[in-house]
């Protein structure tokens, strides 16, 4: 086990624990905080998977953006209740289905002979940039359009209700 693998396992452990806590805790606030930890750990995994740009974007967008948004939503929607409790319902059904999904995925993963990871590109960042503005330009532009649309949508939803 080299350092990278150790770190991978460590981040993975944090991620799994964070995710479990996030779905299991009765406190919404803690769920969101756990999600933040989970997301950060995932960012670490990205870094270890030679995707440092994705890792930083993960921090940027998820932790700096989405988690904050969630906290906002929580604080704006649970006025007066300082410790909003989120009940867990029908755990058996969820467990069965989740188990089925996870087992299927794991079985698929382990029963597939995966090719070895190739050497990481020398100029990874450059490759990513060229891909974004080259072969994948249309998806890239499209995501920009979707972001714009969702911003407008979010604004109009929140404003429209107010009036």
């Amino acid at each position, binding site marked *: 086990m080299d350092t990278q693998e150790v770190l991978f396992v460590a981040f993975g452990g944090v991620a799994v624990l964070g995710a479990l806590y996030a779905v299991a805790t009765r406190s919404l606030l803690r769920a969101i905080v756990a999600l933040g930890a989970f997301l950060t750990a995932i960012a670490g995994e990205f870094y270890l*998977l030679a995707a440092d740009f994705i890792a930083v974007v993960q921090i940027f967008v998820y932790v700096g953006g989405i988690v904050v948004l969630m906290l906002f939503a929580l604080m704006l929607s649970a006025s007066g209740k300082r410790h909003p409790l989120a*009940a867990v319902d029908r755990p058996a*059904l969820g467990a069965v289905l989740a188990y089925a999904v996870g087992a299927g995925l794991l079985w698929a993963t382990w029963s597939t002979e995966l090719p070895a990871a190739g050497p990481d590109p020398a100029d990874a960042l450059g*490759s990513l940039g060229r891909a974004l503005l080259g072969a994948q330009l249309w*998806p890239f532009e499209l995501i920009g359009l979707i972001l714009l649309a969702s911003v407008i949508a*979010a604004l109009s939803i929140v404003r429209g209700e107010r009036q």
Partner: protein
Amino acid sequence: MMTTAALTLSAVLFAIGVFGVLTRRNAISLLVSVEIVMNAATINLVAFSRIHEPEAMTGQVFALLGIGIAACEAAVGLALILAVYRRFGSTDVDTIDLLRG
């Protein structure tokens, strides 16, 4: 080795996310669970990016796009949650069943 580990992690996280989606009653919790699911998928993309044409970076590009989608989803979703909260005074999805047949 690394790829299989990543995929395993992804599968576990995916299952956890699905569990959360199915059991949480609060809308924000649902969103949290969905984010877990999406991250599990993103791990897959990043991991596969290394074994499938690493130079093309397709997996990473799609991971980026996935993150972008997640941002959109969170923004709109949370806006909806706020709107719902204002209307129903709750973010518990079980109390909102206007569409009950």
